[in-house]
């Protein structure tokens, strides 16, 4: 501690907190991104499985726009939080898996005019299809709250 005696230990610790808070802010944006994708995905599957024909068409457009916005967000990101970096791969793969399951269900099992029981099944499928995104959002929010 010869060259920088002016930087006290307290001041150094405060600067560590301040600098790391800026990274945490970025992580919270990542959590909100997962949350927005979860809402969009759940809405899309509910509309696709249970909504009228016109709503289904709009839902397709809306989810397309959301995916494009998600891609732009990821490319423009300037900080990759350690947890977000690790979660991004597992959440994306899990989400692709649940989306395939929901698509298969929609194509082969779900009837054109679903009764109340099929309605419940549709809601369950919509929730399962989007669950990895909610998991990602909760993990990120918890992590930024803990640190």
């Amino acid at each position, binding site marked *: *501690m*010869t*060259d*920088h005696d002016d*930087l006290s*230990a*307290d001041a*150094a*610790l405060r*600067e*560590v907190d*301040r*600098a*790391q808070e*800026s*990274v*945490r802010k*970025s992580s919270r944006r990542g959590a909100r991104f997962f949350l927005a994708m979860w809402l969009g995905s759940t809405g899309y599957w509910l509309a696709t499985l249970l909504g009228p024909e016109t709503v289904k068409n709009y839902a397709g457009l809306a989810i397309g726009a959301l995916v494009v916005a998600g891609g732009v967000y990821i*490319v*423009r990101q*300037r*900080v*990759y*939080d*350690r947890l*977000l*970096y*690790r979660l991004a791969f597992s959440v994306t793969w899990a989400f692709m898996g649940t989306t395939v399951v929901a698509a298969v269900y929609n194509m082969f099992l779900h009837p054109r005019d679903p009764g109340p029981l099929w309605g419940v099944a549709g809601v369950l499928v919509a929730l399962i299809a989007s669950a990895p995104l909610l998991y990602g959002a909760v993990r990120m929010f918890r992590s930024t709250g803990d*640190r």
Partner: protein
Amino acid sequence: MSHPRHALDEIIHAPVRLSIMAMLAAAETVEFRFLRDTIEVSDSLLSKHIHTLEKAGYVRVEKGFVGKRPRTWLALTDQGRSAFQDYTSILRQITEGPPRP
């Protein structure tokens, strides 16, 4: 030479380099412009300090493109992460006193 302040890493214990290390320690990778805007320093000063940290083996610099735009990404090496952990634990020893047995 028993006071913990003598054990502080001189490379990290400088205002700009400390900010760089703290941000990189909390992140996987950080883009050069984000560091510059958050720490509020010029490109040249930031580059100079990054070069010092890179030479010490604490920081890894990766250059790439997003579309046609060049981007510089920075990350801590394992050595840098461990040096930063040691540094912050010494700071805590100074502020809180030595750990009780």
